[in-house]
Structure formats: structure tokens, C-alpha cells
């Protein structure tokens, strides 16, 4: 079994993707999966060649065939999502529950498999990685995450990678649950703000509830050292590992523009801090390091 570490953040915009990219480059022989499928960023700054692509088909599109519909209104009455009006289905409200299809006595509801996006397998200097791109407005992000993980895990095992690093989505909803399920450990990147702390608590509650070890990183730590202390106290009180603080650095934005990773700025303190944090994360989350 290849060790799998998911990097999540609760709150977006904490620099999670930049850090994931740096970890990916620091770890020899790692494989990466961008599971932030409705805001994938890993591929944006990382030069790569796509090796293989597949369509991501999930769920169904539902449509009422006007020629067959006898206007009995049964579907409209039973659709709990208010998606059917005047014998037409509003695709933004439809949740694909299948009820209309099942109950229509006239076979007037048609369903067709839905193409929700694309999944790419790519090769970069840092190693292979997989990323998904959900079509804007599509549901099934959780399912897409599972598929991205499936592909990356299989390939990582085939080529003998030592670790799979997952860039996870924000929040605590289904794509996050799909990203952290059955991982070796989870890194939560937060920032020292009240909202960062509040989001951290919810994300940590989710992951520890699933019995998965957590390691916490504070990014842009110098924004507020007092809240940094509160975060570290929260970690200690809940027996969660704390991997360290990384201070604000313009290099995070520069590196995106230069298409480089933060750790490639050899002389910078940002690179040093990120390296140290990754070392601690490995110690916290990998069994053989303990």
C-alpha cells in the first residue's frame, strides 16, 4: 500500500496548493492527485505533458419527451427538488434522483449518461500526477474525487511510487470526505485568523471523526502570532500534531508567476520553513518514521 497524504485547508486561499506542489517536489518518488476538482490549480503552475485523458461520466441528464408526455403531472408532484415545471426539467435544480423516470407511466422521461468533465494523467519534472476538471456547474464532485484517486493510486502502485500526495478541496462536504477517506494522514493548512481557526476546527473534527491522524500547518503565521498560539493550543488540547509555522512571503505569489515551486528558491526563508514543515509532517503522519 502506497502511503497517502491529503492536504486540505477547511478555508480556501491558505496557500494549500502552493504547499502541496512544494511537498510534491520535496518528496522523492512521489505521485500527486489534484482532488480540488472544481478549482484544480496544481496543473496551472506545473509544466507538464498529458499522458492520458478520460471523460468523467457520472449520473444522468433527465429530459421530458414532449411527444410522449400525457401531462399527468405525476412527476412534477413527486419531484422533491422543484425541478419540474410545465413538463420541463430545470437542469440546475434537478438532483438526478431518478424518481420522475421511475414513476412516469408513459415512458416520457428520458435519461442519458452525463459527461461531467475530464480527468487527465500528466507527467512533470516533479513526477506523475492526475487532475480532474469538473465542468462548471456540475454535481458529482465527490464521485470525481474518488475516480481521480482510483486512477492515481493504481498508476502510483504500478510504477512503484513511495507516496501519493492529494491536493484536497476546501470545506467539509462530500468532495473533502472523498479526498481524506482511507488516507494515511491529513495535513490541514490554516492561517492565523479567526476564520482560519474556526474552519480548522470543523475540518479537524471531520478528519479525527474518521480516525485519521492530522498534522496542522500555519501559513502566513506572522499575520497574527496571538492566534497562532491559539491554534497551537487547539492542536495540543486535541492531541493533534503541529508541523510548524510558515511566515508570509511574496515568494508564494512569485513562484506561481514563475511556474516554480516555493522550495526552488534555495536561499529564501520560505523554502527553509516549508522544508522543515514537510519533515515534521512526515514524522507526524508516516508510521515508519515514528
Amino acid at each position, binding site marked *: 500500500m502506497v502511503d497517502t497524504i491529503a492536504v486540505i485547508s*477547511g*478555508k*480556501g*486561499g*491558505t496557500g494549500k*496548493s502552493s504547499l502541496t506542489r512544494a511537498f510534491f517536489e520535496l518528496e522523492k518518488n512521489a505521485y500527486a492527485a489534484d482532488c*480540488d*476538482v*472544481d*478549482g*484544480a*490549480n496544481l496543473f*496551472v*503552475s506545473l509544466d507538464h505533458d498529458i499522458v492520458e485523458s478520460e471523460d468523467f461520466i457520472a*449520473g*444522468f441528464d433527465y429530459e421530458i419527451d414532449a411527444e410522449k408526455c400525457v401531462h399527468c403531472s405525476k412527476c412534477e408532484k*413527486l419531484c*422533491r*427538488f422543484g425541478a419540474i415545471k410545465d413538463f420541463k426539467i430545470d437542469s*440546475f*435544480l434537478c*438532483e*438526478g*434522483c*431518478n*424518481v420522475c423516470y*421511475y*414513476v412516469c407511466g408513459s415512458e416520457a422521461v428520458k435519461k442519458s449518461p452525463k459527461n461531467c468533465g475530464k480527468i487527465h494523467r500528466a507527467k512533470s519534472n516533479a513526477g506523475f500526477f492526475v487532475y480532474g476538471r*469538473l465542468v*462548471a*456547474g*456540475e*454535481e458529482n*464532485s*465527490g464521485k470525481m474525487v474518488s475516480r481521480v484517486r482510483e486512477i492515481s493510486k493504481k498508476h502510483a502502485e504500478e510504477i512503484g511510487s513511495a507516496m501519493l500526495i492529494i491536493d484536497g*478541496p*476546501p*470545506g*467539509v*462536504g*462530500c*468532495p473533502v*470526505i472523498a479526498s481524506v477517506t482511507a488516507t494515511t494522514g491529513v495535513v490541514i493548512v490554516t492561517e*492565523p*485568523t*479567526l*476564520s*482560519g481557526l*474556526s*474552519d480548522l476546527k*470543523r475540518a479537524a*473534527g*471531520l478528519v479525527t*471523526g474518521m480516525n485519521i491522524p492530522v498534522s496542522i500547518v500555519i501559513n502566513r503565521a506572522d*499575520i*497574527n502570532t496571538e492566534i497562532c498560539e491559539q491554534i497551537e493550543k487547539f492542536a495540543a488540547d486535541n492531541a493533534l500534531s503541529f508541523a510548524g509555522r510558515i511566515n508570509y512571503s511574496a515568494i508564494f*505569489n512569485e513562484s*506561481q*508567476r514563475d*511556474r516554480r515551486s516555493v522550495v526552488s528558491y534555495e536561499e529564501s526563508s520560505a523554502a527553509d520553513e516549508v522544508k522543515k514543515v514537510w519533515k515534521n509532517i512526515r514524522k507526524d503522519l508516516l508510521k515508519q518514521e515514528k
Partner: protein
Amino acid sequence: MRIVVVSGKGGAGKTTFSVILSILLSKEVDIELIDSDVEEPNSNLFLNSALESASVYRKIPRLNSEICTGCGKCADICAYNSVVMVKQKPLIFTDLCHSCGGCVEVCPVNALTEADDKYGEIGSGTSGNMMFKEGRIDVGKIQSPMLIKELLADKSSDRVQIVDAPPGTACNTVQALYGADFALIVAEPTPFGTSDFKLIHELTRVMNIDSAVVVNKDEGYSKDFYKLCESLEVPVLAAVAFDEKLSQYYSVGNLKGYLENEDITSYKGAVDGLKSLIMSEKKNG
């Protein structure tokens, strides 16, 4: 009227803008701020409104196994695999249930009934002359879109609703944007931010919602970003430079203090833009 504040991704400044613009606008317009980022609701950290919370329930099926004949129709209709047949008996995984009611409807012997299951909370309160509402999903529940729909069901308010949307471009954001009169896109002009912006702009286009952009943390390297806005024909209402001081105020939840003590002229474009939008809507509506 409803204005939804979105960004392709969290952290672009969605909540900051929602709160700042709501406060500034509320001096002249009746505002209701609604935080629909139900997985991580944060707006109230900046308002400190004393919220009155109400639990929100969904329907989940419950089986009376004595009546069940094991026909399997319930598992057949369920699109989410939350009912599966094991040894000719239905097994219900309520975590996955979307409360569509299908299984209950098709059961020929009424062996399934519906029970209430709490999955989140809706809090409401006031802040100054502004009304405030937020949704908060229980950790571990996956029905965020349902809660957002519930939270935003009422559009009848006389007040102008400003909605702080969830991040991303998937189902949660679709629910927040549904029924919007206008989308305000907060974007960071970095490579990541540009990629996120393209996705969210595409979503507003597909959903047929007019939009405008406010550029956040403009560090002066943003020419390409403005060109992109121009080619997409999205107006830029304001550009706000990165401000170290804002981070300080933000970190302790004191955006009100920021508005009182610091130079906020760069937000003026956004405030004026929205104001004229609201006025023209009032005239037409």
C-alpha cells in the same frame, strides 16, 4: 433583489467583500447579508451578531421490516445507492440519502415511512440596521446544497440580499447562484486566481446571470487579467491593492474597525457600481 458574491475558489476575498460592501451599502440601502458558505460560515465572525439558531431537518426513510416483502423496488429507484438489498432485505445508508422520497413512494406495501433527521442550522440576527442570516451544516453531513436551497428559499424580502457564496463552481455554488439577479465575482489576478476566475465566470454565463468583477490583491502584475476581463466583456467595478493592514484587521474579525480607521477609497467603485445596479433594478422592478 439578490446579489451573489462568488469566487472560483475560497480565499480570494469573498467574505471580506461581502461584509465590507454590505456594511457600506447598508448606510443607504436596506441590506440583508446571507452567508451561504454552509460548510465554513465565517461572515458573522466580523459582525458578531447574536444569532437565533433554528435546527434544519431533512426526511430520511425508515423501514418497518415486519411489513417488508423484500421486493427490492426501493433499492431499484434509489439513484444514490443509499438503499441496497442484502439477503432480500433493504439496508438503508442514511448518510448517502438525498431525501428524494422515491423509495417511500414506490414501496407497494408502505413498509417505508419518513423520519426527521437534523443536518444543520440556520441562524439569524441583526447587525446595525442590517439583517443577517447564515446556514451551518453539521460536520459529517453531505447535504450542503439542500441547506443552501433552504437558506435561500425566500426571495420576497424588500431588502437587497447580498449572498456570500460557497467556494468553487460545483453544486453548492450553483444553488447559491440560482435565482440571483447579479453575480459579483471576486478574483485575485494571480495565475491560480485567473484559472479559478475563468471557471466561475463560465458558470455565471451558463446560468445566464449578469456579472462584474472586483479585483482583489492587485499587486501590479495584472495586465493579462484585465485583458481577459475585457475579452469576456465583464466590467471591472473596483481593484483593491494588497493591504497588509487589512490582513491584520481581518485576522481578529475587525473589518468594521478597518472601515472606520483606514483609507477605503478603492472600495468606492464597487459600492457605487452596486448602488447604481440596485437603483436601476428598483426603477424597473
